[in-house]
């Protein structure tokens, strides 16, 4: 396997989607190749950083609207509950 081929298999490798034979050849290549080892590490790091984006804040206006919508929903539910007394 050349590096040019190996880099195109990286996503399949990380997903566990390579055949056993391909995975073995892929890992053998990595053992002897600093370039591909570094490239795979960069892809893993990229994925890690992407995973942290989920913590970014919601735009304030949208968050306010959502909170308001939730409150409206909850108050209409409470009205429903107190109207029917099957508790």
């Amino acid at each position, binding site marked *: 396997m050349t590096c040019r081929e190996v880099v195109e298999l990286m*996503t399949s490798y990380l997903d566990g989607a390579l055949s056993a034979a391909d995975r073995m050849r892929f890992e053998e290549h990595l053992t002897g190749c600093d*370039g591909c080892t570094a490239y795979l590490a960069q892809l893993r790091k990229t994925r890690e950083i*992407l995973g942290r984006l989920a913590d970014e804040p919601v735009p304030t206006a*949208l968050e306010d609207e959502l909170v308001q919508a939730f409150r409206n929903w909850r108050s209409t539910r409470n009205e429903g509950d107190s109207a029917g007394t099957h508790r």
Partner: protein
Amino acid sequence: MLRVAMTYVRDPNIAEDIVQETWLTCLRRLKDFEARSSLKTWIFGILINVARARQRKESRVIPFAAVLSRLDDAIPRPTVDQPRFGNDGMWRAGPDSWEGLPESTLIGQETFGQVRAAIDDLPSSQRQVIVLRDVVGLDAGEVSSMLRISEGNQRVRLHRARAAVRKKLEEYLR
């Protein structure tokens, strides 16, 4: 959720409507949630349906675009600039190691800004997959099913998207 919504509609205001409608739908249907999937999967499944419906309402071009994306997935294309490899197919000069970089840089606001910009530059079909897989954390089966594409298609898009984001990050971190 906004980012995923915006892969279906261009107008950010409509995208916000989609997100709000999704939350309302989730609240209404929460009592019927049977925990067959994770809550995250369930919420995003609803988001995608709401986004699709709104997209159909806003424009008639879309189904053709979906076909084009799938055809494009089938065209093999290298994701690394070819001049980086020699005639023997091996790296001329390997990529840098990011191990030596301070964690505060890699997980800093500026880096996040670069990554967000990189995601926004992706074609929508790739952006959908990388956001659902890597930002939201859904698995390959869930994402393929949600987007109604094969796992193979999904993997091609993820591969291209990750490579593009990695490349932008590499340029920024040099």
